[in-house]
């Protein structure tokens, strides 16, 4: 069942050589930590558990989820009478997978037309870039796409999105006005008129401590519903994999304000492991739709729990 622990993960190698290879180099430190630890042989003792704890904590899994995972490993050791240190690796992978698998729910857009997706998140998380990548993703599924330049605050945010529109050769609805809700409202109307499949709405980055900005984005959502009654059909919260435990409070606050339906985890091409997803899975689970693995148009992947676990634990052949 955990064959992926033994051989190089997934099947499509042309894809993997890119980001998985990079993921692995980035993760080599953790990986070698784990391999070192496991190749050492010896017995399953407290010291071993402490090392597992170290691996999880340094991946931003957080104390709560780490405790949960280690308890699961201990349970497996007891129930399956594991004695070999090597088996610990599978036990930990198993525990993580059990925690993360429920989050792997792909985003399906066929049921609505236009399917309206609104993105939100803190400053610099990767919202605009993700829209660029998502546009490509949906186009390659044969869908027509329209972008809404809803970040009316940050300097040159509109120009940034226009560039992504140009790269994808899709229309960007933008205004000189400073009203995000109005821009997106227009975009939804334009999509209806033009028979567009998917609308991607950008919004300005905001920290959840800024109450008036949280109110503003709630209004954006309400106004979208005025243009199209059951829209937005998906509210994506974009999280930066470099973020520590604060990601959890981002999830809670944005969810409270907007009812977040999916997550995008960006910048996984670096050394950060995004382990906070495990903390989120435990405390406030929301499906992870995509991961970002670079700054290019093609650097978006669906979230596959077992690949993520393999990458997080730095597991290789």
């Amino acid at each position, binding site marked *: 069942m955990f064959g992926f622990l033994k051989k190089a993960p997934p099947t499509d190698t042309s894809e993997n050589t890119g980001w998985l290879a*990079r993921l692995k*180099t*980035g993760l080599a*430190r953790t990986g070698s930590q784990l391999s070192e630890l496991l190749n050492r042989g010896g017995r399953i003792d407290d010291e071993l558990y402490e090392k597992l704890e*170290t691996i999880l*904590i*340094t*991946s*931003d899994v*957080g*104390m709560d989820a780490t405790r949960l995972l280690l308890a699961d490993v201990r349970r497996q050791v007891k129930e399956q009478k594991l004695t070999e240190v090597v088996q610990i690796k599978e036990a930990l992978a198993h525990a993580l997978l059990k925690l993360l698998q429920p989050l792997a729910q792909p985003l399906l857009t066929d049921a609505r037309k236009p399917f309206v997706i609104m993105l939100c998140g*803190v*400053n*610099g*998380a*990767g919202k605009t870039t993700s829209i*660029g990548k998502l546009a490509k993703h949906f186009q390659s599924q044969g869908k027509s796409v329209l972008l809404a330049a809803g970040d009316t*605050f*940050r*300097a*040159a*945010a509109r*120009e*940034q999105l*226009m*560039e*992504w529109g140009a790269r994808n050769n899709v229309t960007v609805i933008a205004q000189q006005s400073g009203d995000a809700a109005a821009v997106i409202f227009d975009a939804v109307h334009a999509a209806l008129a033009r028979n567009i499949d998917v609308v991607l709405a950008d919004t300005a980055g905001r*920290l*959840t*401590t*800024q*109450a*008036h*900005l949280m*109110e503003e984005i709630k209004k954006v959502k309400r106004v979208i519903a005025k243009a199209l009654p059951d829209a937005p059909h998906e509210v994506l919260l974009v999280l*930066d994999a*470099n*973020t*520590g*435990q*604060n*990601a959890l*409070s981002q999830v*809670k606050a944005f969810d409270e304000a907007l009812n977040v339906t999916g997550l995008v985890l960006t*910048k996984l*091409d*670096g*050394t*950060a*492991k995004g382990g*906070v997803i495990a903390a989120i899975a435990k405390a406030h689970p929301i499906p992870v739709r995509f991961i970002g693995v670079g*700054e290019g148009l093609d650097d978006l992947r669906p979230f596959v729990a077992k690949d993520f676990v393999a990458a997080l634990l730095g597991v290789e052949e």
Partner: protein
Amino acid sequence: MLDNLTQRLSGIVKNLRGQARLTEDNIQDSLREVRLALLEADVALSVVKEFTAQVKQAALGEEVIGSLSPGQALIGVVNRELTKLMGEHNDALNLAAVPPAVILMAGLQGAGKTTTSGKLAKLLREQNKKKVLLVSCDVYRPAAIEQLRTLAQQIEVDFFPSDITQKPQDIALAALDFARKHHHEVLIVDTAGRLAVDAAMMEEIKQLHAALKPIETLFVVDAMTGQDAVNTAKAFGDTLPLTGVILTKLDGDARGGAALSVRHVTGKPIKFVGVSEKMNGLEAFHPDRMAQRVLGMGDVLSLIEEAQRGVDHVEAEKLAKKMQSGKGFDLNDFKMQIVQMKKMGGMTALMDKLPAQLSQAAAGAKVDDRQINRTEGIINSMTAFERSHPEQIKASRKRRIAAGAGVQVMHVNQLLNQFEQTQKMMKMFSSKGGMAKMMRGMKGMMPGMGR
């Protein structure tokens, strides 16, 4: 004040109270709590380990003097060592170079380099009266140059145009040349965000540094960064001779443990912090405030001291219990809270002791100490029944109470409103992340904050 660590530390105080000196044994548990608190605040594990070892050593060598309990002594050590690690004092920018003094910005994608470049330019022009030139070498991120150009225009600082067909090094050298010719005293060079594992991009910025020979090379890091801060900081520090760090997005609710990690790994001072998206949102770094923020404890030390001086412990603990449950909190408690607040120097003084970001949020929510006195008077003229059943206080009772306290019915209404608000807050307090939520709420009520 009642967030995790404070509760934990209060626990430590209680557990250690009455023990003569700090021993390896009796600080073991407390140190574990400190370790947990730091991890929750995203301080990197390796740094946490070293730090707690350091605290332990310092604590064991510590003489517990006079009126301090051993618990207070330990918290004192934690706070002191943390502040020490943060840098103890504030480091200013070094601009002592043959003009133009070049400042090079470096960091991950989305950290806040471009915004901070603008903020720095504004600050240097306004506070140091410098003639500043801004240039962007970010030829990768769409509209990055346009972003900086817009900011430069907004703050009315000179901008050296560049475009994405140029090489970053050529842009930088041309800007340097221009700055020399036009007598700019400072040149701020914004760069593209890059990952530490991207060898080509790291080489690029190394070359940029070699060509520009900046007097300041600033590593810009997001306060929300997690454990990986140590790896990133190390990689940037190994590639570039950093001279300082700027911590951004401190206006959020992240504890900011990355500050500690980065500081520890690079050994470089944190020179500024970003506290808003706006161009005036750059502040000098205060190590002591940051230490307290990471610990999430406000000025726990002085709070403890003052509390011990002025507050009846048994009563205080009873109140704390009620506050935590949010249940059974009545006007008696409300009054006791007010009395204790008076003993501790009034609301204004109390506000000063909240962690930096909270007192910032609370600024403007000025509480009038005179009003506290009036409130006390009103409650004094209530019957015992009324105090424990505030909801029963209807019109005729209100009139009687008002007359008794020598105030108007309006004031009684105000008090009952205030009590209700407090009761609501108590409930928020007791939920997780309550304090932050409460402050957020307060912030929302105040116009003109944030953008």
